[in-house]
């Protein structure tokens, strides 16, 4: 049976980025600039994606603006009919280049901030002066008339500033605020003890979000979900493996989710060897956890199996060492208690952040 086509394509144009966030969603082994796809490769990928049925393209990284051909890439994507969303740190775009992006057909900008105030934000991002540049960039985005979403990744070290982050989103003129809890694999797993929020923090944040939502209805919409380590039901990660989204990494590998390379023994095919449609419909990697056939108990036969699709494979592997296990975020998982253990251990962290950087020696965390 042919699976329905994906709605979204996440294009990780590059792993290069001036920031060093300790929860970066890029893999520990970062791709080098000389291994990145060419402009023509990406143009072909965008055309194939649109033909396959992709509607929205998320241009991400690293920092996508580290690609000198970003304007050209947006132009190819818009030409293919894709809705283009630029996911950026805002650190490498001036007014001229932003205007060129808008002219090329860019639809939306998602700008990340690391906190509400510069001292903390710059420390978390590992880049002095970064926060101020982001605020200046937000001004350019609104001047260009582009709609934008402010994205804040939250964790123990900034969750208490959520009220100020909401205020910042309003002040900057964002229409949407995406409050995303850190997800713990890759870099974030290395830094988990420094990042996991406490239950109290989380409860206060949840109340705060509910108040802000009703107070700013129609002006600012807020995306927020309870993080896995305090959840009792897993989330349908990426809307289910191979169901809604595909990811193309900087070197052209096609992944069911941006963290899938953390899973052992997987072979990911490349857009340099095969077209997107055949990779989506029949590659081993996409078939492996698609649907429910791969599931074991308690997922198999569970009434929620086709709602949460077993949760996140990367989280299951990171916590249990078994990529076919039920996501421990589920209260029915026999490994559910691992989350409590992690929360307790994080109460007394040692040392400081391990910042994202190239060619780090892999560190054992479990």
């Amino acid at each position, binding site marked *: 049976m042919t699976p329905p086509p994906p709605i979204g394509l996440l294009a990780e144009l590059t792993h290069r980025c001036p920031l060093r966030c300790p929860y970066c969603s890029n893999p520990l082994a970062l791709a080098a600039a000389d291994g990145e796809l060419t402009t023509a490769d990406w143009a072909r990928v965008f055309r194939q994606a649109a033909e396959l049925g992709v509607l929205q393209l998320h241009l991400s990284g690293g920092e996508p603006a580290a690609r000198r051909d970003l304007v050209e890439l947006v132009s190819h994507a818009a030409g293919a009919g894709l809705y283009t969303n630029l996911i950026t740190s805002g650190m490498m775009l001036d007014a001229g280049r932003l205007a060129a992006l808008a002219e090329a057909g860019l639809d939306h900008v998602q700008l990340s901030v690391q906190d509400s105030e510069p001292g903390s934000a710059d420390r978390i991002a590992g880049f002095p002066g970064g926060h101020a540049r982001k605020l200046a960039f937000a001004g350019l985005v609104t001047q260009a008339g*582009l*709609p934008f979403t402010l994205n804040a990744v939250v964790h123990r070290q900034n969750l208490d500033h959520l009220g100020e982050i909401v205020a910042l989103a309003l002040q900057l003129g964002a229409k949407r605020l*995406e409050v995303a809890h850190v997800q713990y694999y890759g870099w974030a797993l290395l830094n988990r003890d420094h990042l996991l929020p406490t239950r109290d923090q989380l409860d206060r944040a949840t109340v705060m979000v509910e108040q802000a939502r009703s107070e700013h209805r129609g002006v600012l919409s807020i995306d927020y979900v309870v993080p896995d380590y305090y959840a009792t039901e897993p989330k349908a990660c990426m809307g289910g493996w191979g169901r809604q989204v595909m990811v193309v990494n900087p070197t052209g590998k096609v992944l069911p989710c941006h963290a899938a390379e953390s899973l052992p023994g997987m072979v990911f095919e490349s857009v340099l060897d095969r077209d997107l449609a055949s990779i989506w419909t029949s590659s081993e990697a996409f078939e492996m956890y698609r649907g429910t056939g791969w599931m074991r108990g308690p997922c198999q036969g569970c009434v929620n199996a086709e709602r949460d699709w077993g949760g996140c494979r990367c989280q299951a592997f990171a916590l249990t060492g078994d990529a076919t296990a039920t996501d421990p975020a589920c209260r029915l998982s026999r490994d559910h208690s691992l989350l409590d253990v992690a929360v307790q251990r994080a109460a007394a962290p040692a040392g400081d952040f391990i910042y994202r950087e190239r060619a780090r020696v892999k560190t054992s965390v479990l």
Partner: protein
Amino acid sequence: MVPQFARGHRLREDKARGRWVILAPERVFEPDDIATEVLLLVDGVRTFDEIVDALAAKFAAPRDAIAADVTVMLADLRERQVLAG
């Protein structure tokens, strides 16, 4: 009144799935057939009255009823920030 899409929102045919969709920041709305007929006329040039006239002619339906339906629909999409103004 000239209805128009808010920046970052547009109507597009989704051929792969045989439907029309509104593409929006991080979201996709699926208008039903009637809403699609209305939104296809929202081009930032036609006035509300012109849109209603066009629909009344196309569907040979009473103008008042159409005007009432379109008013409700546009208000809903404005509240969801899909339409501007």
